[in-house]
């Protein structure tokens, strides 16, 4: 675990909830590129800055509604960005980009009753948030998690491949779980909606 990164993120989330311009500024410095990149993928380069601006203005005005106990600030911002981006596309009569990943909705929702376009946007949001969380992990833990989650290797296979004790592999995965889950928690709960 990258303890320093996690500590900084926790401090920012607690600070953000108490309000103030400086907290929003720090949040922008921390998550501005994530939000902007997400917007760029969904609405395209021409509208990305405008939507990202709207996201942070909304976040600024909605600061008291962010609850760190419900999940990460990045997920909260992406939940707002998701709605803003879809609104923008609808206003323009455009469809969200098709997501070819075959993503399965993590929350267990039935894809066949969900707007397919919204699912595509949700899939991109989830993957970018998970990627953000992976970046927060310490190198060893990240390597183990990627082998377990992305390559679907067993703990034993990872231990054998990395020459790490099996207990260390399991420990790294277990300690990483809260970080990864927290990254996705707010967006998948539907919070962040205005």
């Amino acid at each position, binding site marked *: 675990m990258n303890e320093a990164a996690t500590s900084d993120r926790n401090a920012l989330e607690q600070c953000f909830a108490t309000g103030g311009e400086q907290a929003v500024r720090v949040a922008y410095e921390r998550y501005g*590129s994530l939000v902007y*990149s997400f917007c760029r993928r969904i609405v395209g380069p021409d509208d990305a800055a405008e939507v990202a601006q709207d996201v942070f203005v909304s976040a600024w005005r909605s600061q008291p509604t962010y609850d760190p106990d419900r999940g990460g600030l990045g997920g909260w911002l992406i939940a707002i960005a998701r709605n803003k981006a879809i609104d923008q596309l609808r206003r323009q009569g455009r469809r969200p980009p098709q997501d070819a990943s075959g993503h399965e909705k993590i929350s267990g929702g039935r894809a066949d009753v969900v707007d397919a376009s919204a699912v595509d946007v949700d899939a991109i949001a989830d993957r970018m948030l998970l990627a953000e969380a992976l970046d927060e992990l310490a190198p060893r833990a990240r390597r183990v998690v990627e082998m377990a989650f*992305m390559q679907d290797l067993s703990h034993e296979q990872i231990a054998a491949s990395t020459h790490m004790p099996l207990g260390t592999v399991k420990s790294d995965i277990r300690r990483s779980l809260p970080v990864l889950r927290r990254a996705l928690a707010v967006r998948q709960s539907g919070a962040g909606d205005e």
Partner: protein
Amino acid sequence: MSDELNAAEETQVQQLKSVARHITDEDFQRDQPPPGLWAQIAAAAQRPAASDTPAHRGVRRRGWIVGVAAAVVAAVIAGVVVSSRHDDRLVASAALSNEGLSPLGATSTGRAEILRRGASQVLRLDVRNVPRQPDSYVEVWMIDRQVKGMVSLGPFHGDGDYAIPSGIDPASFPIVDLSIEPADGVPTHSGVSIVRGVTGP
């Protein structure tokens, strides 16, 4: 603490795997926001909520503006009643009537004048029988002929002069409109117009 995962954690792992196995390099890529975006955010956030940029204005309201709200171009400027001066020059004027509009303004009539005052311009309003509704206020608008772009001059404070924002050409927004707006913080036109007129020379 045991390193073995419990059932709940195993479920979390499976859920995370369903996302993780589709991650691509693109999901890690980050584009930097354009320079100046923070300044725009800070400026926008510290203006009244009604001053959000045009594309952000809501579409939930219904009425005559349905279908065009998405394209609304609006800069909402707090209404400023400006004192009259003798060097005003009449640019355009219009009679304001309730014809075809909300029955709430059935008896409302008035007159609008566009006046040039030095380098600036003002909208002079003289409106009779302005209805007052609980939890609402009357807002002054200038609207283009396509009814797609509009400029709010702010709440109606009574007869007098309302500053037209610099950069706004009244000829491009010739429709003067007063609407009843619920005090709900939604910046879009409510669709409940009480008087309207098209200014001209």
